């Protein structure tokens, strides 16, 4: 159960996606959620800046990984807009490159997790019976586990012992590892939501009609049920992205996530605690980026939920 959707347990909530006729209604409702609109703008600016990071860094003339002993702990100036870190790298440029990694890892991991969760939830809800019982017991058990300690162990696993020495050599391996372990543990929320909505959708006349017309089970699930339960999945993906950014930042902060020299918002904070007395702002900026991004994704998810599925709200205006 997510922090922002306490009322999702009601499985009977059949969410109808925005069909062409009420697309306008969707936009009207979404635009009425001011925090969500503002969040979308902030996220769009951030994503653009992240995509353009190499251009910006070339224009300003800093390399994100250029180390310089002579330029350690520089205060903000016209040259280094936010100052430099403990080994003389430009903080602003590193934040931009960190955005690339953090956003890419979060979005990819959330999508993979949603894919697994959707398949599990669809099968459980559609097939029912003992398949449903087994899958949901498993999901519940996963949900009940203390996640962070598990993430830490998974992040510490030695790839060489798994016979993946070649993968371990790759500079990007820490990024893919984060994506992998988040997907491995993070699919449960989507699975529960999809299962609940599938259970309800299965009873709908259009599903019975499709069955009467001779559609196979796979076709019914993919073509008839999935589009009709898309809204809660979209909302869940949005909220999961925010969660993944937090998980990535925690693991990277602890030195178990994205490995330097690759910059991520989390690993930029790794040494911040020891340097708190000397350079407090080094601890503030990356954390602020994480905080703003996560809160934007949460507001966006909230706004999407309002717009896609207004009935889910007990306080709908």
């Amino acid at each position, binding site marked *: 159960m997510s922090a922002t959707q306490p009322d999702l347990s009601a499985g009977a909530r059949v969410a109808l996606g925005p069909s062409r006729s009420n697309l306008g209604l969707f936009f009207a409702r979404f635009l009425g959620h001011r925090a969500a609109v503002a969040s979308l703008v902030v996220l769009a600016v951030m994503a653009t800046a992240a995509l353009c990071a190499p251009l910006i860094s070339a224009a300003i003339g800093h390399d994100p990984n250029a180390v310089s002993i002579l330029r350690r702990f520089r205060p903000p100036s016209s040259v280094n807009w936010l100052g430099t870190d403990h080994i003389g790298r430009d903080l602003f440029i590193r934040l931009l490159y960190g955005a690339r990694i953090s956003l890419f890892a979060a979005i990819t991991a959330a999508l993979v997790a949603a894919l697994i969760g959707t398949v599990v939830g669809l099968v459980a809800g559609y097939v029912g019976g003992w398949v449903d019982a087994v899958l949901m017991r498993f999901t519940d*058990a996963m949900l009940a586990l*203390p996640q962070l300690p598990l993430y830490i*162990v998974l992040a*510490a696993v030695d790839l060489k*012992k798994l016979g993946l020495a070649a993968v371990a050599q790759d500079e990007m391996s820490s990024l893919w590892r984060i994506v992998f372990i988040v997907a491995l543990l993070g699919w449960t929320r989507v699975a529960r939501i999809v299962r609940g909505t599938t259970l309800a959708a299965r009873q709908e006349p259009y599903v019975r009609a499709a069955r009467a017309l001779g559609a196979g089970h796979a076709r019914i699930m993919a073509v008839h049920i999935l589009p009709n339960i898309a809204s809660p999945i979209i909302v869940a993906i949005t909220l999961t992205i925010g969660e993944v950014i937090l998980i990535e930042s925690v693991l990277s902060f602890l*030195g178990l996530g994205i490995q330097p020299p690759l910059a991520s918002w989390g690993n930029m904070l790794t040494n911040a*605690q020891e340097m*708190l007395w000397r350079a407090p702002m080094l*601890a503030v900026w990356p954390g602020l980026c994480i905080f703003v991004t996560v809160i934007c994704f949460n507001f966006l998810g909230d706004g999407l939920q309002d717009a896609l599925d207004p009935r889910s709200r007990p306080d709908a205006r």
Partner: protein
Amino acid sequence: MARFLIDRLLQATFVLLAMSFVVYLLIWLMPGDPLDLQLAADPNMTPESAAILRRVYGLDRPLWDRYLEWLARAVQLDFGPSRLFKVPAMEILVPRLGNTLILLGTALTLAMLIGVPLGVYAARHPHSRIDNAINLLCFAGISMPPFWMALLFILLFAVTLGWLPASGMHPVGQPGLLDRIPFLVMPVMVLTLLNLGAYTRYTRASMLTALRADYVRTARAKGVPERTIVWRHALRNAVIPVVTVIALEFGALFSGALITETMFAYQGMGKMIYDAISGNDYNLALVGLLVATFTVLLASFLADVAYVLLDPRITFGEQRT
């Protein structure tokens, strides 16, 4: 009822067993084995003596074999020695568990004492200015990276203001309970704020539903004072799902505690697990993870039981509870 409880207990035992094997496997997959570390530390060790030690420790046997042997000892509460502390893992674990319970208990109580009234207020005045402000604060709390909140607190209260110690358990040489309080303030504050947002939102959502129920309308029609309706009639019903969700989310609470303890060098379970994993202390990491899992399972079991006891409408089979 009895069948339900037994069913749940069996299920929890099974999850714990499965967890123990998975964690055993994962820890085996962590870099190095206990002997590699000893070899690296001792230049006089020959390959022959290493092979002997390997046999003594049983490291030459298959993983499955070693797991069963570990399990046989574990059920007798013997989890082997801790590599970092050179004493049985249980001796480290027990006091750490106590410290974590102090931290978690205080933070959980505070978060509920603040969060529930805030949620009730927000639900009584939906879309008011104060509701919007509370909502914003909740989103901020949910979206805050836990370690960053701790960093900001240290920056404010220890570095800038100098009011509170930045980390640790107690002043050097003064391990008394009272001496510990200043060291507890920041960890408790951080952990409380981390969970406050979620609890407030749960309460608000649950209260909104309860305030629309028929019995509330009936009570209003009878002229029951609004205060009584809110706090006696509606809250009583609204708080059941809230407590359940909080118990079910005990794992998240524990994850928050791990970060908080690590940031403030508070000697609890969370920090112990983290230190054990990063210090290759296999036995300690294993037992720590299992105790954490056990605690979380226990919390969700108690939540189920409480739910049944608190809500007489829920029945199992033909029996009424």
